[in-house]
């Protein structure tokens, strides 16, 4: 699947199928600080992502 990450913006290819929580863990990202968006929809941590999915992992932290 193609995964878009921010700060800095980049894309990585990760083989599916994979659960959202496993994807975040593999990328060493904390669930509480991120949202996972497939297409236009938010998905929960137990959702199974398919190899052909386009996924955005959006950080939620802002402010100085």
């Amino acid at each position, binding site marked *: 699947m193609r995964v878009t990450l*921010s*700060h800095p913006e980049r894309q990585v290819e990760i083989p599916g199928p994979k659960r959202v929580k496993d994807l975040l863990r593999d990328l060493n990202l*904390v*669930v*509480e*600080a*991120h*949202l996972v*968006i497939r297409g236009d*929809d*938010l*998905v*929960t*941590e*137990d*959702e199974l992502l398919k190899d052909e999915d386009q996924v955005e992992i*959006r*950080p*939620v*932290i*802002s*402010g*100085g």
Partner: protein
Amino acid sequence: MNCKKCKIKAVIGLPRHNAAFCKACFNEFVLEQVTRAIKGERMFGRDDRILVAVSGGKDSLALWDILLKLGYKADALYVDLGIPGYSTKSREKVQQFADSVARTHEAKLLIHKVEEEEGAGIRELADLIHRPTCSTCGTIKRYQFNRAAVEQHYDVMATGHNLDDEASRLLGNVLHWQEEYLDKQGPSLPASVEGFAKKVKPLYRLSEREVAAYSVLNRIDYIVDECPMAKGSKMLLYKEVLNRLETESPGTKQAFYCGFLEKQARALQQGSGQAQPAPPSMAEKDRATLHPCATCSQPTTAEICSYCKMMARAKAGSTR
């Protein structure tokens, strides 16, 4: 994972509430939390005019959206800091929201341009006065938001600070034992003296992730990029630490901040019931220490307020 209320497929899990919600039930949850904050802290009423401080980020645009949906009279002020690239982009997001959503509620957007009034962008100003950009920005924003609220007769000024903002700020203040700042950590600060607008934080019961989820679900187009000036900020580190704790132990941030608010309220109540005089309230302390700035008349503890001092130094620096 299914919605706790209506049992259809959930779009977000909320471990700290031991719940998961679909879009409709999550929106309901968000509006309930904000309503609870507004009423519980007596922030404002139906007839009050509210000025929302907007930046183009998820929190302030979500706040403006929620207040309008709840039927409050809320206009907004955007301070254009003149940060190359970032300010243009964030301003576009605010303008887009104002045109597409706020206008349908007859709410208006006010804009203050730092370069026009202060004579230079935020980075140049910070260089001229030899101060960190974030603290220069903080001084200008606090001053301009307060000034706009007072001069244009708004009853209250609302900011998009969320639970993570408040918990991380509290952590920073406690780590350095900055007890003098703890008084001002509440979600509702009174208009204690002439020239100070009442300030409220209606999102303080919602985590940063919940506010971001609300914005995504409701198609609010916000600026996702971090402010280039905030890189390496201590607050970002405190937020990361708290999020690690939250992941291991859901509810930590809420227990930390809301526990502090409860203790603070109890201490004030206990003080008022004792034979010895109660500790002075924040409003009493403000009335005892603040007076009008000799230059601009906004309240300050010194003869000249920090904004006017900063502007005088910037002017001297630019003519050198």
